[in-house]
């Protein structure tokens, strides 16, 4: 059992948990994830590691309420326990001094990109971060990301805060500008990562994306998370989650993310009706 040490509602439907998991905290690296299972009836889901403290033995995860599991998770409070918290899984993001690195985060992936941006900065890179959200109510960690970036650009889809538009627009301007961009890291919804890769491709700047297919064990045992990269089947849990964005078969990823749409809907509606009865 893993204790929730701290819970923070970053925005109404995006939450931060600091979880006591000393062994994971000791080994975590930027870009890695954990698999969690809330309780006996719970499913195993992957969540990226947003932060960790090896000395205090805590690991921070950030998640958005989407389906049954994340809604159930959001009901936990500080002092509650998560049955299973397994990690750190996946290969860490490749960090080295590239020169200028652009970190692009869509939605709540700002939490995922934080440790990567910080590590890139520490490795001596100039870090330009772009974070985008649908509207101003979904913006969080602007100051945090700003503190590990040389430059921060914020966008909202509806223009309710900062620059109006999608993250790909400032990304394209940076690539067209007179400063050389050496690497792009794009993390967020799959469709956003695809379009970031499409944006950078004409400029030939290596673009790393962090794929988020459905997983079960997260250790290479089941093959549920298989993705096609450069025409070769890879398991995102052990071969990734980071891959070259130009090589990813995006349509296959989108299709495989929809495998359980019907079941997810059924499960969620059942859960909601149970909550209605309880309240």
């Amino acid at each position, binding site marked *: 059992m893993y204790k929730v040490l701290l819970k923070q509602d970053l925005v109404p439907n995006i939450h931060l948990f600091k979880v006591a998991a000393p*062994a*994971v905290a*000791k*080994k975590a690296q930027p870009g890695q994830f954990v698999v969690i*299972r809330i309780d006996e*009836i*719970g*499913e*195993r889901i992957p969540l990226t590691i947003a932060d960790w403290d090896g000395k205090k033995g805590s690991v921070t995860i950030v998640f958005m309420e989407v389906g*049954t*599991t994340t809604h159930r998770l959001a009901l936990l409070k500080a002092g509650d326990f998560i*049955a*299973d*918290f*397994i*990690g*750190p*899984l996946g290969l860490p993001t490749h960090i080295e001094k590239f020169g200028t690195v652009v970190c692009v985060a869509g939605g709540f992936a700002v939490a995922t990109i934080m440790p990567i941006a910080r590590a890139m900065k520490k490795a001596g890179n100039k870090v330009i971060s772009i974070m985008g959200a649908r509207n101003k109510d979904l913006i969080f960690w602007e100051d945090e990301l700003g503190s590990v970036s040389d430059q921060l650009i914020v966008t909202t889809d509806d223009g309710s805060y900062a620059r109006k538009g999608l993250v790909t627009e400032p990304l394209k301007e940076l690539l067209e500008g007179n400063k050389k961009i050496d690497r792009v890291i794009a993390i967020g919804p799959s469709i956003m990562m695809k379009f970031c890769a499409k944006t950078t491709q004409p400029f030939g700047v290596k673009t790393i994306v962090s794929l988020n297919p459905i997983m*079960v*064990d997260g*250790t*290479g*045992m*089941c*093959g*549920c998370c*298989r993705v*096609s990269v450069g025409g070769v*089947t890879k398991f995102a849990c*052990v071969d990734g989650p980071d891959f070259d964005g130009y090589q990813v078969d995006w*349509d*296959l990823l989108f*299709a*495989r993310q*929809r*495998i*359980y749409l019907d*079941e*997810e809907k*059924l*499960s969620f509606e*059942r859960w909601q009706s149970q909550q209605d009865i309880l309240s």
Partner: protein
Amino acid sequence: MPKINLNRVLMPRQDPKLRARNFNEVALGYSAQQAQAEASRCIQCPKHSCIDGCPVEVDIPAFIKAMRDGDMPEAVRILKDKNSLPGICGRVCPQETQCEANCVLAKKGAPIAIGRLERYVADWERAHMQSMNSPVAQPAPTGKRVAVVGSGPAGLTMAADLAKLGHSVTIFEALHVAGGVLMYGIPEFRLPKDIVQAEVEYVTSLGVELQLDSVVGKVMTIDELLNNGYNAVFLGTGAGLPMFLNIPGENLNGIYSANEFLTRVNLMKAYRFPEYDTPVKLGRKVAVIGGGNVAMDSARCALRLGADEVYIVYRRSEVELPARREEVENAVEEGIQFKLLTNPKRFLGNEQNWVVGMECYQMELGEPDESGRRRPIAIPGSEFIIDVDVVIVALGTRPNPLITSTTEGLETTKWGTVVADEATGKTVKDKVWAGGDIVTGAATVISAMGSGKRAATDIDEYLRG
């Protein structure tokens, strides 16, 4: 002297029509009278060749004699002296090719049903002795610490044997429950999970510490274990990496590895979705590719989930099916259809990326290949299409590279297995032993247990140095 009875007592099983729609255990086990009758058939021959057929050397004639004499606690003691997992072995060991094949009665008629008797003794113990809570004699602690990686049959056996000898043992398990393939692979209707957990509890009652959720290779390395006070490490991580066909369309929605399908159904209890959160796709027409026990398990799970038709698609003929005969018969009785001498060429999908069909070759058997079995050859122009909406690929597994890729100094084969001495399990790396599927590739529960047992003996010798 009573006349020798050459016919074994049949074990009651659930009716095929009924069981094809539930996940309850198929084989129901002997009653006390049936067990007594079967035990009485053993002529207590002086040869004891049955013991030679047992990878963990259970004193079979002695436990059967105790049963016959009505001394069940003694039967339990004898059985568990060599086998820490008898309820599991009594259900999933291929006795017909091991102990029972060596039974002298097999020459004239049916050998003693040793597996069924073993199962009876184990089940009797769970029903009767737990309340008695017979304290396990605590051996004198040796002060030596052993790390066991993986809690499947090899690791559990190994841990139990070393704990009985007074060593301090910790098992590191990657999943959220102990048991490995016994939990995620073999289905409830063949091996109930409460029986696995009861036998895991027996192992921990010996003083073995269990650390779940611990992915060795990620959260710690083998060398870190050795540097952190463990005197020896045993690798029993199995063969958990699924193999695919590598043919077009294999990543279509609805195509599973057997590992994924069985993990969802067994470990995550998807057969009880939505009560349990993990879903699995319920196919109407399900094709399982492969002919081993895992293929049979997958097919029978798919049927129980409500499929209209389930096919076993196998490229050789019936005689080459690698599955246990008993499991093939169970599958046939339940209505699984066998499409033999059939091999997939590619999968066909719809616009939403869902599998809708499978194009197959008709095969014929040619000359024997290096495995000694006749090589299947595709008949040119024989392609035909099978309509399917779920496909389960059960072609076998290889060891997961998580450990070998993060450990210096281990020798591996081109199949990814770890090289270890067959008699002792010793690897070429100092202080590291290995056993079970990580060494042999996918094999049986009992062979893994046998290798765990041999390694335990060798590690004990090493630790006492």
